[in-house]
């Protein structure tokens, strides 16, 4: 295995190298292969914020610390995304608590883009979508992020969230209904 180029090894072989030989190179390869997917998940949940990158790093650190718990039941990327979803949801809960105690009610009633006149259309769309996503409940946001941003199939989304496919489909439908309602005022403006 030592002579084999690291980028040709399977995910499970890389995990074994990290687990048994404490290989930093193998760990780095795992990070390289999965960082995009993790970034889509984390940024999908948390938006383009400073702590999103910290949460992304925490995903890989948690994985390394508990590498013996990875039994190959899920694919490595699904396993990492599962960690990312849990950490992101925890962060969102922390944010809600912070927001509650800071009495910041600015975004409580619907979406509000404070300086939309100054920003270009693409960024405005991104901000609108991000704020609409933030107004979704955790369970609805989870399915939207995994299915539409991470582009997992419905079955994969169900697997990551430990839900039946039917539940994922109904949550997706409800989440899209809610998004449609939230974005309606902006559609009508145009």
């Amino acid at each position, binding site marked *: 295995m030592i002579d084999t180029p690291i980028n040709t090894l399977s995910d499970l072989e890389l995990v074994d190298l990290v687990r048994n030989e*404490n290989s*930093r190179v193998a*760990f*780095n390869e795992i*990070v*390289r292969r999965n*960082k*995009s997917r*993790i*970034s*889509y998940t984390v*940024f*999908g949940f948390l938006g*383009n914020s400073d702590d*999103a*990158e910290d949460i*992304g*790093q925490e995903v*890989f*650190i948690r994985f*390394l*610390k508990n590498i013996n718990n990875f039994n190959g039941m899920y694919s490595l990327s699904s396993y990492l995304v599962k960690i990312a979803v849990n950490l992101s949801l925890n962060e969102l809960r922390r944010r809600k608590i912070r927001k509650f105690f800071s009495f910041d009610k600015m975004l409580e009633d619907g979406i509000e883009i404070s300086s939309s006149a100054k920003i270009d259309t693409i960024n405005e*769309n*991104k901000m609108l*979508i*991000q704020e609409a*996503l933030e107004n979704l409940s955790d369970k609805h946001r989870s399915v*939207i*992020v995994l*299915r*539409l*941003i991470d*582009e997992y199939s*419905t079955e994969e989304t169900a697997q990551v969230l430990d839900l039946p*496919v039917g539940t*994922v*489909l109904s949550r*997706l*439908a409800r989440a*899209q209904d809610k*998004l*449609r309602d939230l*974005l309606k005022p902006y*559609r009508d403006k145009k």
Partner: protein
Amino acid sequence: MNENHFKKLLYKSLDSELTSAEKESISEYLKQNPELQTFNDEILDIRLKIKSSGKVDFSNEFEYKLMQKVNPIFLKKSIYGSLPDIISTVFRKVGLSAALILVIVSIYNINAGNNNLIKNLFSKSLPTMEYVFDPTSETNWINSR
């Protein structure tokens, strides 16, 4: 069948496979109902915007910063990673050696007629060889059996 049914079918068509009968019924309904077509277009537009808005990559320093953070974990693992194995091996070797020495010393002492070690360990004395086979003391001999 009402509009809600077709909305459900529309959503389903975006995230899973429809049966041929479902496909046929929905395409028929879409042709006759421009509102549902608008609804479909809006949902497709929202999905497209979500897809494009969420694709943000970590910064270029992400890997570097992460490796800096995990280095101590690797170091700790390399130093202490095999500690449980080392401890268990040492304990096993020390334990076995101690048990072996104890057995040898006990056998030697018993053969030499000295049962103090066993007496100390179990607070019970074994009869000495002379005592057991002392033909002049029948009672003690019986007791010792």
